[in-house]
């Protein structure tokens, strides 16, 4: 943790209220995000118990698995989830704009520009906490290899038609969420924690209720008090008044409320199955419906507070102006979305269980590049982030005190003006260290020449972006009295080297993986949890 954010957290402790950790919003927020508040059954890997889902904060859709061990009920839940999520995703697949992409021509091997479609906007999924993102991945993994009756008439327990497709999409969202700065799938706790410094540890920041209490406490109490209450307060039945954001439920809820309700539901179901005539069946169906209603009410009572909290979090985030580079990063999300749309349309198989060597290396390279991009862009967009970089000696700001014109050697001398900057910062500059400043959104580079007055003045030589002529273009060289900010980190990221195609994986990495076989479905057993 940097000293500036430590200081912010300590100020939060001292004032009892969250302190700003950003002055702009560093993540994209769409106009119609799909909020997903899932719950799972304890002790089973991601077995769904219920969820609130939807794009309308006043009309969430409640999905419930009244008996989590019943395969048919779980499938019904997933099918219903697909009915909500897939049309939402489809809604973004249609509207496209023309764009260009550089591709390698398979015949000539040359890099050529091709016209392609780019979806004009992309869907956005919001879950309450980081554990919610893990669940999205887990659900994706559990569904994408399922076989529907149409795909495989012999399959035991065929999945409902759209479930495997939902699995592929959730997998895509989950995988994209690992890319730094992406916004296709966001955890509310992470985004809030990025923008506010809370007076507690980062471990405790995963509690959405506590986080919101710090940021926006109710009248008359401090954030600290409200957060403590959100974390620990229980009602007369021993239930947390602010239920955990899930997907795990509170054991006290499971044991005291949910388990008896599920038992009643089971009994009602057994009774219905044993009904001997229509009249009796009608009665018992009523009892079953009532039992199911009771479970629905219970789950609603656990998810609704979280649902409201997520929307409140969105409100708070929308009050911050969007960072200048957020749009550009969202465009990358749109490319990612469009790419997956195209793979689905082209009938490609679902994502494999494990990446091959080349795919894994490519993903790592992309993520490292995006991480560096994110760090640079956040600093450029937000003076508070830049302050942290300045404190770390990775940037410096100050006033230009002197400009001396100079030229490069050679036949056609180019301008290489020497600029002196007076700064209170202590950048870690070494011989000829390259530094960059933003000039009309583009990075202009300079190199360190000398430090004067015990480091209070830094002399730089400007290297580029001054036009082709002998004299620099107007405005391309800082002038005496200008406030400037230079960074030691680059503003734009270079693309990495191209890796071999997977079929050309070298012997050091196991050689070519061979013909890709369609991934087998998970074997179905009597007691699967998903």
């Amino acid at each position, binding site marked *: 943790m940097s000293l500036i954010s430590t200081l912010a957290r300590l100020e939060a402790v001292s004032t009892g209220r969250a302190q700003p950790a950003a002055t702009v919003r560093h993540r994209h927020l769409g106009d119609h995000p799909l909020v997903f508040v899932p719950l799972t059954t304890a002790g089973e890997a991601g077995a769904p118990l219920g969820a609130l889902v939807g794009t309308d904060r006043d009309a969430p859709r409640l999905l419930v698995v009244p008996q989590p061990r019943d395969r048919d009920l779980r499938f019904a839940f997933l099918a219903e989830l697909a009915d909500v999520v897939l049309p939402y995703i489809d809604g973004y697949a249609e509207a496209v704009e023309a764009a260009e992409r550089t591709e390698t021509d398979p015949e000539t091997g040359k890099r050529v520009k091709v016209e392609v479609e780019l979806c004009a906007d992309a869907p956005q999924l919001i879950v309450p906490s980081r554990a919610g993102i893990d669940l999205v991945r887990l659900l994706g993994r559990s569904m994408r290899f399922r076989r529907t009756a149409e795909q495989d008439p012999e399959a035991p327990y065929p999945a409902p038609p759209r479930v495997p497709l939902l699995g592929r999409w959730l997998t895509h969202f989950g995988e994209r969420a690992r890319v730094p700065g992406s916004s296709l799938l966001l955890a509310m706790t992470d985004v809030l924690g990025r923008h506010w410094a809370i007076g507690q540890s980062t471990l405790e920041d995963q509690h959405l209720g506590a986080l919101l209490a710090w940021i926006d406490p109710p009248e008359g109490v401090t954030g600290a008090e409200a957060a403590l209450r959100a974390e620990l307060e229980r009602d007369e039945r021993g239930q947390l008044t602010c239920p955990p954001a899930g997907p795990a439920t509170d054991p006290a809820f499971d044991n005291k409320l949910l388990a008896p309700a599920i038992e009643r539901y089971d009994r009602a179901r057994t009774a219905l199955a044993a009904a001997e005539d229509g009249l009796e069946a009608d009665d018992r169906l009523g009892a079953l419906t009532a039992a199911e209603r009771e479970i629905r009410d219970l789950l609603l009572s656990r998810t609704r507070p979280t649902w409201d909290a997520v929307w409140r979090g969105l409100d708070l985030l929308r009050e911050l102006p969007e960072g200048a580079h957020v749009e550009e990063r969202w465009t990358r999300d749109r490319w990612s979305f469009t790419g997956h749309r195209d793979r689905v349309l082209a009938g490609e198989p679902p994502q494999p269980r*494990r990446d091959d060597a080349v795919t894994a*290396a490519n993903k790592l390279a992309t993520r490292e590049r995006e*991480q560096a991009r994110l760090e640079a862009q956040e600093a450029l967009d937000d003076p508070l982030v830049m302050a942290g970089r300045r404190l770390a000696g990775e940037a410096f700001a100050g006033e230009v005190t002197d400009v001396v014109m100079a030229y490069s050697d050679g036949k056609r001398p180019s301008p290489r003006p020497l600029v002196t900057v007076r700064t209170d910062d202590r950048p870690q500059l070494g011989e000829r260290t390259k530094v960059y400043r933003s000039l009309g959104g583009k990075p202009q580079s300079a190199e360190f020449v000398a430090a004067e007055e015990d480091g209070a003045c830094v002399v730089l030589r400007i290297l580029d972006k001054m036009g082709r002529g002998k004299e620099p273009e107007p405005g391309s060289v800082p002038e005496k009295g200008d406030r400037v900010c230079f960074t030691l980190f680059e503003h734009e990221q270079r693309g990495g*080297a191209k890796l071999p195609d997977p079929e050309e994986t070298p012997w*050091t*990495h196991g050689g070519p993986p061979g013909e890709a076989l369609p991934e087998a479905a998970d074997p179905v057993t009597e007691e699967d949890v998903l």
Partner: protein
Amino acid sequence: MTTVFDPSAAAAQATDAILHDTLHGTARGVVVDSPPGAGKSTLVVRAALELAEAGRPLMVVAQTNAQVDDLVLRLAEKNPELPVGRLHSSDADPYDKALDGLENVRKSAKAAELAGLAVVISTAAKWAHVKVDEPWRHAIVDEAYQMRSDALLAVAGLFERALFVGDPGQLDPFAIVGSEQWAGLAYDPSASAVTTLLAHNPDLPQHRLPVSWRLPASAAPLVSAAFYPYTPFRSGTGHGDRGLSFAVPSDGSGPDRVIDEAAASGWGLLELPARHTPRTDPEAVQAVAAVVRRLLDRGGAATSERSAAPSPLTADRIAVGTAHRDQAAAVRAALAGLGVPDVVVDTANRLQGREYDVTVVLHPLSGRPDATAFHLETGRLCVLASRHRHACIVVCRAGVSDLLDDYPSTEPVQLGTVVKFPDGWEANHAVLAHLAEHRVVWRP
């Protein structure tokens, strides 16, 4: 043991076996583990020359430009006639200017312009952009343990077979983003190149250089036991072979006493009073600078197997090692204040592969309120404790053993990954316990 250990013979035997496997073996790869100062560069140069002599086109992959330039210079020194290509980037100042003075070294940013030369050398990053129709018959991959698996993936298509050389005890490569999702896979892109190579090719011949020519007899056993528990090595020199003496006698101060202790035993610990400090602890930084100043002032002379006459302990034979860059900057400033401008001060990362007569180390855990995985990383301590030919002086605040005892052990475990030894905790304790025997307590 009944026979007397003959370091030269043991080293020669190992080198012969490596060269035999490289030149005449059938395996596509040969892996060589080289502990600190075991003659890795000498081996690489020799293998390169022999491969070139055998008429086999050779590419050499190193990790940094400094390493590449160093290899080119060494090759030219051994065989000035050999046509060598230095493939470099298109950035400004892409290579060491000293290369311009070498007649048979051609430099270019384009691989095609270096085609046909006996040896072409570049960094892994630059090689990754090279495309060839016909792969090189042979490659040498230097510092292979510091190379990431994905970097090897990018260049492995360029050669048919390769000699992989590196030091497994130094700092591991790292990724700036999480890579847990691939943990346990043989080709985890964030793992070291050698890990991936051996996971896929477990039958490759593996060798080890058994003798450190750098580390003195006082240091090799400790470094070997603490950082290479399963692959021990010996010192090439005996206890009497090296000596460090000073013309000016001790003035009784802490720095002088620790210098004398280190001169006599090879190790010295200058222990400052226990206190929690920020990284750039002014007292510790001053203490480091004072030790360096006194090392120079006292007219040190080093005797070794290299020459009959003692050689003076000059500024270029001393280095200061730290864990963080801001510490290095603070020490540089303190040294400048004492009028010592030309002693190398750097972090462990940058000192990898370098060698000095005496090193002064600011202990990574000195004054820290808490230990972190970064500070406990064995590679960091290993680098800092294995750069010296004569003596290593560590400056540290008291209380580090307690800090180690309080360090939580809640590391996650990834299924399918090989457990890496030694454990940072154990290695730190081993080094501290040894240093405690050479302790000079000082209150500045």
